[in-house]
Structure formats: C-alpha cells, structure tokens
C-alpha cells in the first residue's frame, strides 16, 4: 500500500477506465447526448472488476477520478469544448451538476466493491 491507499495496478486500471469512460462521454456529447454519469459507471465497474476485497478508499478515488475525467473529456470535444477547466463549474446547470454527482456516487459505490473471486 502506498500514500494513496490503493495498490498501483488497481490505480492504473482506474486511470485507464477514467480515460475510457471520459472518451465515451465525449463521443456521446458530439452526438448530442449528455450522460456524464457514464464515466462513473465505467470507472466503478473497472475498479471493482480488478479488485478482490472491499475498500472504501478505492471508492473515494473512483469518485474523484470520474469527476476529473468527465471535466477533462468535455473540454476535449462537444459543445463545452470552448470552456476552460477553470470555468468547468459554469457549464453545470443544476441538472448537469446532479448528473455529475450521480456519476461520482456510482463510481464510489461500485468501485469500493471487489468483484474478482478471492484466491
């Protein structure tokens, strides 16, 4: 265990899933579909799939990374691409803020579980 409280391979898997989920979210944005919570689902499922035991700390990291990945993704493609990361909050209506929060909550809830069979 390191200072982040999660193992390095798991962290790498979480980051990879954050990139994947962010990519999916950005691709859907270019097609007019705004579904930021999907980032959280992809991150959570990915983290749980590579983990054997429950970990609240891993859930927290999943929530954090899903928010950042969503923010970076909408900066790269779609209707919000012109807004800088510092202005991210200005793209959040109450509805969008709720969807992002839902994504973070899903990432934390799913990501804290361990779906891999114990050895």
């Amino acid at each position, binding site marked *: 265990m390191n*200072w*982040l*409280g999660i193992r390095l391979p798991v962290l790498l898997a979480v980051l990879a899933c954050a990139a994947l989920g962010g990519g999916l979210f950005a691709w859907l944005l270019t097609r007019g579909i705004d579904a930021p919570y999907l980032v959280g689902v992809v991150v959570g499922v990915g983290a749980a799939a590579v983990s054997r035991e429950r970990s609240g*700390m891993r859930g*927290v*990291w999943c*929530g*954090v990374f899903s*928010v*950042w990945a969503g*923010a970076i993704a909408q900066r790269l493609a779609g209707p919000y691409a012109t807004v800088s*990361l*510092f*202005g*991210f*909050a*200005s793209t*959040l209506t109450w509805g969008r*803020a709720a969807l*992002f*929060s839902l994504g*973070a909550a899903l990432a934390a809830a799913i990501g804290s579980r361990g779906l891999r069979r114990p050895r």
Partner: protein
Amino acid sequence: MSLFTSALAAGAFFFCADFAYTLDHYLVHHDRERYRRTHGRHHRRYNGAKDAPQLDEYELTTYTSAAIVSMATMSALSLMTGNFGFFAGALAKYVHSLVLHLYQHRWWGPVPLRKQNLGRPRRHWGFVSARTHAFHHSHPDDVTFTYAETWAGFDRILEWAHPHLVRFTADARRSRGAEAS
C-alpha cells in the same frame, strides 16, 4: 469567485476536517486494539528521550495519505463549484498538522516528556497550542481532553458528550461482548 467565498469554503473544510480528526482521535483512544496497532506508537515515541528523526516514516505516511485523499476530494469539489477555497482548506489543514507536530518537538529532548511536568492545560475554547499537544503525548488519557488539533472547543464538546458517546466506542462494545459471553 470572491476572496470572501474562497476563505469561507477553506474555513468550512478546515473546521469539518478538524472535527473529524478530533473525533477519530477520541475513538482511537477508546479502542485498545486499534490503539496498540496504530496510534499508540506515536505516544510511546515521544515519552522516551529523543532518539529518532522528527517525523518518522509512519507519521509522515499517515498525515500525508490523509492529506492526499482530502486534497483529491476537495479538488473535485472545487472543480464542480468553481470555488478553489475547498482545495486551499485541505492544503492548509495538512500544513497545520505538520507544523503543530514539528513544533511540539520542542518538548522532545534528552529529558522525557513526563519528567518535564508540563502541567495540565486549562479547559478553554480557544486554539490548541503545541504545548497542549505535547502534554497529550505524555498524558494520553487525561481527564481534560486534549484530542483536538486546532480548536479546543471540540475537546469541550467531547467532554460533554463523553458519557453518552463512550457507549459506542470499540472498547465499550468489546466489554459488553465479554460480559454477554
């Protein structure tokens, strides 16, 4: 984003984190097993003559990993609210923890803490001093609570809540379990 709302957000996080720290500190002192495994070494360390570096690896790791997690979650909150005070508050909490601990080392020298007769801190509602924290190290379970890191008011509140709260601690649960069996 005005300076006022940033400061407010930073203060709000600092206050909540300080409360969480104080409560957890109280709980670890009422959980013999966890105390022995983790926090107890922190106390043992300062009660002898100084024989080790200021912050050892265990302490740096505990403070830093708690700080990294709170900075990360606050970074996400700052991003979503556009108020970077939340992140600044997490950073400030970490700096304060480290400074308080490094400063209490003034009382960690050739003469063991207990022999220095620091004197029990009076019960007050102001800020916690490094001297109070040094006293805590030599008197972990004193009747005057010294669990807080920043605001001594949390200790006063815990002293008031203690008779009710103590029933929910791990030690109380364990002794109930021992009685039942």
